[in-house]
């Protein structure tokens, strides 16, 4: 693997792990508040669609972003209504949201644009383009630092930077703020939060809003930053990979970053190894590499590498009066 390949893989890793990071952090807020969320996939998909549609109609990436976030928020609030207000089964609600999102996006896409659920190709102006930092070209040849600056730091689109900043931000919110304290508490023992005079439902709704917001950005990234249109089921299971990453990261922000980078790297690798024939071994079984994130997470779940202990109140509706 020569230098060019290396740069290429590193950048691909950054590109591919961005949506995972955003989605996994989204899941972090929800699950830390005690709401299990396997609907990340659906929320991302809805966001990707609505972002692409609105960007196509208005020609503005920013309006697209808003549209994406809005769609995702709606989904998040449905999940909230079902699992917080109505104390429904959170997994079932998540599953439902994934189906509805996958169905509605394809349905409306087909009906409105008649391209097999695909939205119109977006011009550069209606997308989040890559940003070249000042002097990136100049220092490009300066060994190491300049190289890193010009090839890795510079030259990504806004949402990538957002994702990577969201990690420390989330850590800070969860660990250092009142909201974070209450978030952690409500995920561990809602009754304690309630008797402390804090509304459990409102806390959880707010957590889900953040989930909606981040999933919205993640979806938007897929359709109008990473690519230039929405295509049917374009999340292709990334919502689930993000969920896996969240578990693998034991519901903690920094580990989420590392895990997502790892999973993103595996993806980048599997794409590049597609059809590559390694002398001796023969064709690389790409499927194996693609399956790796799941296998790794399963091994963790099985408690062979550390134990993933989820928030204690997770998945259980908060019921005062039996």
């Amino acid at each position, binding site marked *: 693997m020569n230098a060019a390949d290396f740069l290429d893989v590193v950048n691909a890793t950054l590109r591919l792990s961005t949506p995972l990071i955003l989605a996994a952090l989204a899941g972090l807020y929800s699950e830390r508040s005690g709401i*299990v969320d*396997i609907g990340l996939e659906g929320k991302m998909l809805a966001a990707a669609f609505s972002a692409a549609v609105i960007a196509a109609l208005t020609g503005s990436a920013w309006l697209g972003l808003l549209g994406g976030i809005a769609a995702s928020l709606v989904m998040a609030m*449905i999940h909230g*209504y*079902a699992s917080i207000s*109505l*104390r*429904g*089964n*959170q*997994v*079932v*609600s998540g*599953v*439902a*949201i*994934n*189906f*509805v*999102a*996958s*169905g*509605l996006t*394809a*349905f*409306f896409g*087909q*009906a409105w644009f008649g391209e097999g*659920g695909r939205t119109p190709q977006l011009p550069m102006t209606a997308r989040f383009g890559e940003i070249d930092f000042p002097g990136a070209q100049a220092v490009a040849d300066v060994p190491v630092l300049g190289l890193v600056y010009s090839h890795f730091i510079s030259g990504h689109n806004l949402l990538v930077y957002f994702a990577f900043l969201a990690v420390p931000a989330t850590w800070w919110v969860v660990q250092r703020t009142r909201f974070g304290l209450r978030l952690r508490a409500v995920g561990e023992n809602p009754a304690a939060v309630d008797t402390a005079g804090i509304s459990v439902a409102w806390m959880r709704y707010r957590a889900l809003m953040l989930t909606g917001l981040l999933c919205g950005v993640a979806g938007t990234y897929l359709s109008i930053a990473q690519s230039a249109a929405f295509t049917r089921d374009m999340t292709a*299971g990334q919502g*689930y990979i993000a*969920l*896996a990453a969240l*578990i693998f990261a034991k519901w903690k922000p920094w580990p989420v970053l590392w895990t997502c980078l790892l999973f993103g790297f595996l993806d980048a690798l599997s794409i590049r190894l597609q059809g590559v024939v390694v002398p001796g071994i023969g*064709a690389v*079984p790409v*499927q*194996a590499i*693609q*399956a790796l994130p*799941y*296998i790794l*997470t*399963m091994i963790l*779940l*099985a*408690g062979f590498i550390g134990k*993933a*202990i*989820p*928030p*204690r*109140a*997770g*998945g*259980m*509706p908060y*019921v005062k*009066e*039996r």
Partner: protein
Amino acid sequence: MSSPIPAGPDRKASGDGISAATAEKPKALARPAPDKLPAWADYALLPLINVVAAFVVSGLAVLMVGANPLEAVKIMVFGALGYGEGVGFTLFYTTNFIFAGLAVAVAYHSGLFNIGAEGQAYVGGLGATFVALALDHFLPWYATVPIALVAACVFGAAWAFIPAWLQARRGSHIVITTIMFNFLANALMVWLLVNYFIQPGTMDPASRPFTEGASIPKLGGLFSLFGADLGAAPLNLCIFLALIAAVFVYVLIWRTKLGYEMRTVGLNPTAAVYAGISTSRIIIITMLISGALAGLLALNPVIGDQQRLQLNFVNGAGFVGIAVALMGRNHPVGICLAALLFGMLYQGGAELAFDMPQVSREMILVIQGLVILFAGALEHMFRPGLTRAVNMISTPQRRRMVEAGEASR
């Protein structure tokens, strides 16, 4: 993450159903109020209301794209039941959904949420295919199919075993693991089909077509006796297999000691331990049965219809099973009815695409999702109102309940 949590036929408990994921130790059932809905309302009226709600919402979506929902329903119903071949296809899909629904329901009674039916069916198809490819030249169908049937069950069960084992012995949440096993199943099957089954020179990754030696008789002939023409509908004997499976599940859950133990584990794992029931044993057995039922599903499309192993032949049926089970309240009868409804949706929806191009087949996915939403997650939305309404009608019934309460005084 430890032993699974109640999520049995008493759907109140379903709130905890998933905390299998998470609960440190089993929690008591969360019950907003003693359930006072009479059975007929609980098992017939409520599901009906939920479905209607799902349809209404989807109807709005149809309106949004400038189509007439009622027109759409007309076309769907005709496409599904209007003529022989339509009926044939409807029942063909129904067969798949019965298997899937039963698979989900069986797991559900032990407090397990098996989202992996899709993958288990996929791998089940692999088992059936091995048998078919090996024997179709030598044995008649009635000899091959039973063996294929067993193979499908075994493979499906095997694919369910690992998540089951992880849940039972390692406390890994079965929802997460089964989701992942769907992806693994997909990776595995793609790899096998692309590298091993694909016919040299051909374009699509699929096994070679089976001969007559591995086929399941279609029911066209049978129906023609009653003057119905199924046309080329792939409806085959599997539908009877599905009905047998439904009876089997009923007997298993409510008429056997194993079923009793499964329900105990599902509703109160701690009580199960006290009663000398090994929860991990029950979890594994349950998932094996569930996986086997899912595996059976494969017979219908693979041997009954396409007569070869194709990519993604399950094509969502495993997930439909979730909707079917929820709507059918995890009872075989309810499941058969719900499966029929979805069979009609799938066939009718296909027809819709011929006559109403702007309403694409994804509509069904939407309806499916909404049914899961209303019948599953939002089930408490209509319940209180309905309960009030029903009790207004039948007050004596309510009084009896209160007396039950005061009785001890």
